[in-house]
């Protein structure tokens, strides 16, 4: 038998495609898919969020550290918040925790797990219990409507999707940190308006009138015109002027009394706040 090795024809075991063309095609498809996925997830995150159980929120928020004060002010705010929650038909399986922070920041916010943070700076400016109730009721409404998880949902879903395909380094933990569970939660204008409206209803149910509800926004407007670097409440909220207008419109449409008798803040609470304010503390 005669053996020989004829030269093999070229190009059978290899494909004659241009690698650059393939790269362009594949990467375009890949980026397109990611963009589409992010868009879809972002679009539906709001809808998915309400199916996330409240317990999950509580769990997520259990690791938060609060630089808070547990004193009579906190107790007073917590009691008021509980009563307002009842006035708002707040779901029985959800809970509100108020954290009072002894700081001059003029701000209040709601975050995951039913936590409400309120700063001394804001309390100083509010002259009646009704005005404080408006702040609390507004934040309770955010929690009631699950706005924090919806807001986080959008960010978290997108970050998770990106990290799943290795586009961003980091684990879920750092995503939760980077989205800033506390301060970076931003609510949409619609969410703010819904909360404003629910807060007004709570005030009406609790006090029988909505007098004092606009105080908050007047304070914020005044604060905004004078120079202060501590206002964060305003930046994520609809213009205070518009909100006052909305409140008055709502009140008019519903026939709510805007001239009822204001409830004053208990004397001991006022004193405590004033003491903390005047205390010589460079950080406070």
């Amino acid at each position, binding site marked *: 038998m005669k*053996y020989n090795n004829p*030269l093999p024809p070229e190009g059978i075991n290899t494909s004659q495609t241009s*690698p650059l063309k393939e790269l362009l095609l*594949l990467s375009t498809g890949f980026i397109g898919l990611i963009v589409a996925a992010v868009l879809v997830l972002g679009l539906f995150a709001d809808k998915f969020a309400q199916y996330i159980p409240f317990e999950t929120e509580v769990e997520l928020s259990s690791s938060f550290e609060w630089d808070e004060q547990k004193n009579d002010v906190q107790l007073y705010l917590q009691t008021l918040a509980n009563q307002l929650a009842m006035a708002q038909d707040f779901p029985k399986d959800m809970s509100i925790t108020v954290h009072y922070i002894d700081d001059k920041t003029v701000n209040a916010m709601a975050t995951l797990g039913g936590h409400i943070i309120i700063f001394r700076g804001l309390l100083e400016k509010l002259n009646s219990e009704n005005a404080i109730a408006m702040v609390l009721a507004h934040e309770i409404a955010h929690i009631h409507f699950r706005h924090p998880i919806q807001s986080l949902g959008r960010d978290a879903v997108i970050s998770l999707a990106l990290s799943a395909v290795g586009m961003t380094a980091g684990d879920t933990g750092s995503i939760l940190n980077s989205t800033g569970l506390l301060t970076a939660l931003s609510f949409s204008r619609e969410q703010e308006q819904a909360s404003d409206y629910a807060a007004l209803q709570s005030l009406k149910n609790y006090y029988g009138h909505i007098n004092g509800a606009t105080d908050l926004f007047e304070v914020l407007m005044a604060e905004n015109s004078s120079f202060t670097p501590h206002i964060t409440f305003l930046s994520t909220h609809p213009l205070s002027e518009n909100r006052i207008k909305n409140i008055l419109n709502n009140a008019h449409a519903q026939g709510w009394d805007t001239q009822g008798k204001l409830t004053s803040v208990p004397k001991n609470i006022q004193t405590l706040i004033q003491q903390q304010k005047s205390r010589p503390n460079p950080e406070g």
Partner: protein
Amino acid sequence: MYDILIFLALMALGYGFGRYAEAKHYKSIIQREQDLQHLPAVSSKVLPKVTHVDNILVSGNVVISVDYFKRFLAMLRNFFGGRITAYETLLDRARREAILRMKEQAKAMGANIIFNVKMETSSIYKGEKDSVGSVEILAYGTALIPKQ
């Protein structure tokens, strides 16, 4: 920003050097295949009934690594599925190079034919997430060397 620049630089380097090395290698492979055509390597297991020959194991192996550009292309391919054409030329070159080395060894030992040629491939380096970094291709067979 720097990450993107580094990535682009690595891609360009991988592509440029990869293309250059591949063209050069193919040229060399085709030339050597012609030069060694007189020494056939066949996969038949049945040795001819001839006397006065020594049966010697000959082997040739080659280790190849994937360049950055091809790895990225393959990664994208993994996502969509389909033929990883970027790796095809790489493995084709490696397989032919291994056979050529085996033949060169046989030629140096004075053989005039190689029987029972077999090939083996193994991944010798597992990188991040078990991705294949380098592949070894081994070709071996039985060389028939006429007794002096």
